[in-house]
């Protein structure tokens, strides 16, 4: 079954035709990597999936229904975006993690410390001032913040950039573990082709606003990717 079915997705930003007709299916429970050159529209595409921006034309079906007909808040709680730049909201790490659950009225069932551990940080981070974390720590807090919403789909925009090499693989493993144990579907944007081959079931290659090929991770040839 498809979690997402995207067809003919087009989006112009200012003068740029950023998405030029994307066709892509995302299968339930898979980890799909999205690779492609800088500026090819990867981040923009992720932002159309949680409807942070509106398509000019084309359609996106989430579990069979057009996202246009859905309540945006409900969609975004189910399809959580972890942005390329980890933006911390004012307050402590714990407040950041509980922000979404609190608005959703499910704060009580949410354990910030557990989410932190799932994202590869220690639970002691809870009380820290979120604005004073390092770049890599912020990345992991924003992952924990997304997991706290118990989404069905995670949209990860270069989640391991800025994390030191030793921790990258550990973070990959934690993301995969969290995804598998929760039955999540993951769309994972990365520039790191070996990483894409390590973590994903399938890899989609985006060029100039179009998906030029989708392959199983094992069959992906990375010379052609850029």
């Amino acid at each position, binding site marked *: 079954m498809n979690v997402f079915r995207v067809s003919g997705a087009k989006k112009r930003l200012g003068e740029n035709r950023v998405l030029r007709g994307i066709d892509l299916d995302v299968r339930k429970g898979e980890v799909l990597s999205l690779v492609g050159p800088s500026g090819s529209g990867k981040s923009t595409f992720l932002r159309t999936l949680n*409807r942070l921006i509106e398509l000019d034309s084309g359609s996106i079906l989430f579990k069979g229904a057009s996202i246009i007909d859905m309540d945006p808040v409900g969609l975004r709680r189910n399809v959580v975006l972890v942005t390329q730049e980890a933006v911390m909201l004012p307050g402590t790490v714990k407040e950041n993690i509980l922000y979404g659950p609190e608005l959703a009225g499910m704060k009580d069932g949410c354990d910030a410390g557990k989410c932190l551990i799932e994202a590869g940080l220690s639970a002691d981070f809870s009380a820290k001032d979120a604005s004073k974390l390092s770049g890599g720590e912020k990345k992991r807090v924003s992952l924990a*913040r997304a997991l706290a919403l118990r989404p069905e789909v995670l949209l990860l925009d270069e989640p391991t950039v800025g994390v030191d090499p030793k921790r990258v693989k550990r973070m990959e493993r934690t993301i995969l573990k969290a995804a598998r144990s929760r039955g999540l579907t993951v769309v994972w944007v990365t520039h790191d082709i070996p990483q894409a081959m390590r973590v994903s079931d399938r890899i989609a290659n985006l060029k100039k606003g179009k998906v030029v090929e989708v392959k199983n991770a094992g069959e992906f040839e990375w010379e052609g990717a850029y």
Partner: protein
Amino acid sequence: MGGGILSGLPYTWEEGLVILGLTLVLFVLAIAVSIFKRIGIAKEYTIALIRGSVQLFFTAGILYLLFEFEWWYYPIWLMLIAMILMGGYTSAKRASKMPGAYKVTTPSILIGGTIVLLILWITGAMPSEPQFIIPLSGMVFGNSMTICSLALNRLIREFETNRPSLETMLSLGATPKEAMEEFARMSVKAALIPNIDSLKTLGIIFIPGAMAGLLIAGTNPILAAEYQIIVFLMILCGGLITSLIAVYLARGMLFTKAYQIAEWI
């Protein structure tokens, strides 16, 4: 027209013209200095002075006619409407980035100002006479206009600089209302600061218009002060209500119906 009915001014209007001429000499000198120092405000200043004077004399002419006119309450409605539209338009120009900003500013100024004027009227602080209605509504709508501009401008600036935070909150399932709450609060607060400051310095640095007028007209200073506080309080309330409505209405312009940040930001 001689010294006039209300005024305690100790000279005729012809003599007043001479005094105006003398003060203009000082103005010209100041402008000359600013040209010499290349401050770059001479032209704008002069145009503003001419424009302001023409407007003021024009209004004075209308007031003069109104005060004499038995059916003054008909044209006064037109004046009030003109004040609101002008205020809405001017304030919208200050927030010109926002398409259709007048749809935010005009109702805010209308509602904020009208509530306060009604209270002034019902309590008897504003007798049904043009001498009271015109200057008081001018002050109330004028202040509402300024505050509306300040609040909107600040809010737009907050949106421009905090776009990533706003999008993060939306991505975590916040509604526009929830996402902008903090920025709306800050904008209202910032817009009210000039009012609060003038309230603080009331009577020390700043003898406001209504009181000055009453004193010149020979009112008992205590009574004048009391009246000034009533007026000031109402002007402040008007500004507060206006700014609250403005940030509320602005929400529909800053976000799309699908809870996205509007494209013009």
